């Protein structure tokens, strides 16, 4: 009788340890995923001054656009909360769109090797930001599901595992734009 009780107790403790470790793993994965987003955002901020300088070389008079981009970049870098940063990021994306629209009217600039490379890098980095956010959300979802599932929810409650927020993805226009038609 005592033996059975002991076995049940050991299994019970083992289960708690495993569930706790699983939660910890997932929580750290979320942290890591969040850091990934930051890495890509920083990369984007780093590319912008170069881009502005390159465009300036060909389109000196578009001072207004440059200021807008620089300002939006500074605001995004200095954003205190995630929400602020999201807003600043949207503003920055808008400003960059104007910059590229302006560049359209300078054929020499468009043919510039450096400009083309920066444009490609920027597009690539934006893609990576989107993927990093997607990865973050996937991890948050996994964590939240485990946290809410019975019986892990009891353990999550005992050790104060709080729910994590998903990143609200503002769907990039390009995701819908390309639709290849076949007849």
């Amino acid at each position, binding site marked *: 009788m005592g033996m059975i009780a002991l076995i049940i107790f050991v299994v019970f403790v083992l289960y708690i340890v495993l569930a706790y470790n699983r939660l910890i793993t997932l929580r750290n994965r979320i942290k890591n995923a969040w850091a990934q987003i930051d890495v890509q955002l920083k990369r984007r901020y780093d590319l912008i001054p170069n881009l502005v300088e390159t465009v300036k070389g060909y389109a000196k008079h578009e001072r207004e656009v440059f200021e807008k981009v620089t300002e939006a970049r500074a605001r995004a870098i200095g954003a205190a909360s995630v929400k602020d940063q999201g807003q600043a990021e949207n503003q920055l994306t808008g400003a960059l769109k104007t910059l590229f629209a302006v560049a359209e009217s300078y054929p020499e600039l468009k043919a510039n090797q450096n400009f083309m490379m920066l444009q*490609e*890098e920027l597009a690539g980095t934006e893609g990576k930001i989107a993927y*990093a956010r*997607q990865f973050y959300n996937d991890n948050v979802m996994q964590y939240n599901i485990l946290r809410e599932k019975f019986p892990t929810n009891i353990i999550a409650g005992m050790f104060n595992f709080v729910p994590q927020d998903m990143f609200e993805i503002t769907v990039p226009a390009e995701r819908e734009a390309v639709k290849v038609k076949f007849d």
Partner: protein
Amino acid sequence: MTTLPEWVTPNRAIIAILVLFLFVPLLVLLAPATTNIYEQMSWNRRKSFALCAFFVILIFILALLFEEVAPGARIIALPLAIIFATLGPLVGYYNSDKIILKMSAARPATREEHLFLQNTVEGLAIAAGIPTPKLYVIEDTAPNAFATGRNPEHGVIAVTTGLLQKLNRREIEGVLAHEMSHIKNYDTLLGSLAVVLVGVVALLSDWMLRNFWRTSRGRRRAGRSGGRGGQAQAIVLVLAIIMAILAPIIAQLLRLAVSRRRELLADAHGAFLTRYPDGLASALEKLDADTEPLEVANKSTAHLYIVNPLREHAGLLNNLFSTHPSTRERIAALRAM
């Protein structure tokens, strides 16, 4: 105690036992793949181990069969078998990626030259949560791609220049996502091991068969001293030849059974990574419509590619031996997502 018949020699008894043992890894290899991506990883690792076991047993069977055909050959055949059985899996595990890249005449892609490709692979690696695979390019106008590498840390994706020219960006991204899932699932480990191990078995059987013909012809000439012993000898010889013919075929069929289902799974997971199944679907449509065979691909590497690079005609036999599920089936599955 009844004495065993004359033709039951220790050598033949061991062969019989080994053939029975062959079924253990065979069953593991032929067990249906799961549809769960997380289980898929451990399945692939288990199957890779089973493939190595299968290879080792097969090598020893071949060595002992050789002894039947040429008595006394054991002195050379067995040490050779031990060397092959040790080196095969080791080389397969550590060097298959390099061998495959060399066979496919792939060269490393530079960042400057393929900026879009590099950025997309980096992005997809982030989405999949694995290290960025190395990128290789094959100079060939036939559009195709494959992945190799024993684990995600050593992942490699190779694409042909034809793929880069004929597909648009969304489609290329879909193809890369498909390859990324192969790497994440450890499909590349099993697929690459198969290239090396099946290749070795095929080579050895080929070489043995050629020797069999020579020795059997020599023996027939040497003497027609019939009798029961001679008859049994002849039967064993025939069996040995059948085995030598069968070995590469079994190995080939095995590889197919292993590779077909995982194409569908990689499609599904690739679509999950990009969240855009239509990209991969329209890529597959273009790849399917292209009829140009890929020069650098051959029977031993065909199963690695996203679509069959050999462009064989559909038919009952080709269907049975096909390394890929029908592309139409795959497109339909993606369009339905």
